[in-house]
């Protein structure tokens, strides 16, 4: 067994004054030092790819348009006074919440359906249902855009074929918002499905057997066995998806470019338009930073719930 670093240090000074090489050797043998060294690559990655960009974005958001002087929180104040930006906040919330709720419900339903298919036949369905999640979103959204195309929509062609009128998928605000949500739900549901399927498989069969002996119906089994056992995975999945959906960019960019009349913009698409395309990088940074407090509050409550349940189970 390796000597503990403290033991070595306690024994050392009485024998002889420590030499530099020996001290370094001792430091290197400390568990905390080794742990730190081993974690260093990860720390470097987080510092370089997370902390630095985040810090730089905060710094940028405090500059004027020409990035020549510090203006404090003025960019945030200006944004909050803008009708368009207030609408973007509202829209981002509608988009993210409705899309995540729909993805969670559909994913849960699909996971249940898959769970009850025999293992042999399950694989092919699992593979097929995962496809929307695997295809790069920019490409699949382009496919959806062709289906929604204002003038040559294939969906409208099908509707017309059965005598139904054309739908202005991208031209009318309500439909445009729905279209953006539909595509996000289509692309994101498989993630929920696969997570929930894994969770379902981990619920011990004995619990269902015990519930059945107690006379529980299928619904009661779902309500009192399945859902409590899946609560943590549901929470984590919802949190993860909420973050990704809030930050979604490609679907809005490809389908509507934020239109009509900015009524489908979300934080990321609006930040790109204001920051990069309009040449106001500090304000664009401020737009993107608005996501942070909203998501931090949600993350706090969801993770607190997860921790509480973990403690209860322990």
């Amino acid at each position, binding site marked *: 067994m390796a000597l503990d670093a403290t033991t070595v240090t306690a024994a050392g000074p009485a024998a002889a004054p420590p030499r530099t090489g020996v001290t370094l050797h001792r430091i290197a043998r400390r568990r905390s030092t080794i742990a730190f060294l081993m974690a260093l690559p990860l720390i470097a990655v987080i510092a370089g790819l997370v902390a630095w960009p985040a810090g730089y974005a905060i710094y940028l958001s405090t500059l004027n348009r020409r990035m020549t002087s510090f203006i404090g929180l003025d960019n945030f104040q200006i944004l909050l006074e803008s*009708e368009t930006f207030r609408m973007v906040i509202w829209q981002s919330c509608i988009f993210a919440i409705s899309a995540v709720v729909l993805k969670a419900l559909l994913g849960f339903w699909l996971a249940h359906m898959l769970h009850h298919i025999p293992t042999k036949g399950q694989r092919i369905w699992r593979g097929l249902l995962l496809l929307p999640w695997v295809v790069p979103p920019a490409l699949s959204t382009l496919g959806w855009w062709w289906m929604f195309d204002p*003038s040559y929509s294939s969906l409208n062609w099908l509707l017309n074929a059965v005598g139904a009128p054309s739908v202005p998928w991208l031209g009318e605000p309500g439909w445009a918002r729905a279209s953006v949500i539909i595509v996000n739900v289509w692309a994101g549901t498989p993630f929920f499905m696969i997570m929930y399927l894994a969770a379902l498989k981990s619920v011990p069969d004995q619990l269902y057997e015990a519930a059945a002996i107690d006379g529980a119906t299928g619904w009661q089994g779902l309500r009192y066995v399945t859902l409590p056992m899946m609560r943590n995975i549901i929470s984590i999945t919802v949190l993860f998806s909420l973050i990704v959906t809030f930050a979604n960019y490609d679907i809005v960019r490809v389908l509507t470019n934020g*239109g009509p*009349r900015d009524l489908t913009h979300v934080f990321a698409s609006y930040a790109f338009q204001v920051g990069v395309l309009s040449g106001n990088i500090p304000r664009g940074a401020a737009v993107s930073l608005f996501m942070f407090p909203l998501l931090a509050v949600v993350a706090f409550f969801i993770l607190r719930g997860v921790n509480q349940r973990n403690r209860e189970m322990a």
Partner: protein
Amino acid sequence: MAGNRIGRRGMLRSGAGVVAAGALGAPMVHAQGTGGTVRIAFWDHWVPGGNDALKQLCAKWGEQNRVNVQLDFINTTGNQLQLTAAAQAQSRNGHDAISLTPWDVGAYADQLEPVDDVIERLIGKYGPINPIAEYLAKHGGKWRGVPATSGTQTKPACVRYDLFEQHAGIDIRAMWPAEGKPGPGADAWNWDTFLKAAEACHKANVPFGLPMGQFSDAVDWVGALFLSYGAQITDEKGNPTIKGNDKLKQVLDYAVRLSKFLPNDVWAWDDASNNRALISGRSALVFNPPSAWAVAKRDAPQVAEKCWTVPMPAGPAGRFLAYLPFTTGVWAFGKNKAATKALLEFLGQRESAEFTTNTSGGYDIPPFASMADFPVWTTQGPPPGTIYNYPLKPHHQAKYSIAYSPAPAELASQMYVQALNTKVIARVAQGGESADQAMGWLEREINNMRRG
């Protein structure tokens, strides 16, 4: 030739290179690279083969001047070119020069090398540069880029002359023939006539394909419409001129009436939607460069042979033609500025500009009015002369325009990208707001953009 000038240091470097190569007994490869290297990022032309002109011209100039010229062609799909410029400006590193989209010259003006000497020599040879190119490229009294020919476009009306004659009773080819004078009825080619024709074509199920969304085709034609009514939404200093602006109210009213005769989904159209409307034969008119016609020539020749390009209609304040130029900016942090400027001057020569325009099939518009007479615009067809009126010609009695001028570039670029002009129309026509409510919103948006 002025275009072949190389700085004193460049010449010394070339000489030193030759001497060193001789002393070392190293093989000389055409003396390429002895005058240094110039790296330029040009816009990736969407006309097939459109980049060839620049490749050939740069190779020729490089050989003549013993400069190694490296070209990158970056497209604007996904805003790659704009992102590249932003990244290079931030990092102060990259190409020696880069094609800049209209408003980016203003955005990076303080990082771009003044090119007044180049412009002065070009103006001395070819006369004045068009005022919109100057408005976009000149900042703080200095030219911060050389207006380019490659990629620069205008957006006149591309008309299906058969449908126009059949449904609107207008012989557009007689009105605007392929010759240097207007035909009978050209003076009546105004927005009122246009509205009547739009209504007639709408009834005939071949509505005009005019986008009203947030992409540049929409913003550009609406910008020209606003200017032709004298409806400016800010002054030169960027102060909103919206309150009590009767001209703005008038043009808003006109645009709302016109929108009723357009396809009901134009609010979501992008820059390709109008092209498709024309090419598919479902539209009698679009505002576009000849790219839509060129694609029709390949994919739907029966449509292309019925297309005729004419100037935009006139309004109470005159006739304006939407103009969207590229400008090549020389980065102040570039490593070979003298040679880069010399190359850009070479590309600005009439012969170079004509070669570029010819290679693009007439798509590219040079910045000098004196160059609006290239034969390519007369000879292209079918039908012969179909794009004769594509560049602005004196008998059009028109001016080049860009939406939101004369606002300061840093404000105009925000208004342009955020398509305030089409949105203010949409708020009334689609959103059901009153003109006063929509104009109030417009003023608040502009004031917000000016802050910070």
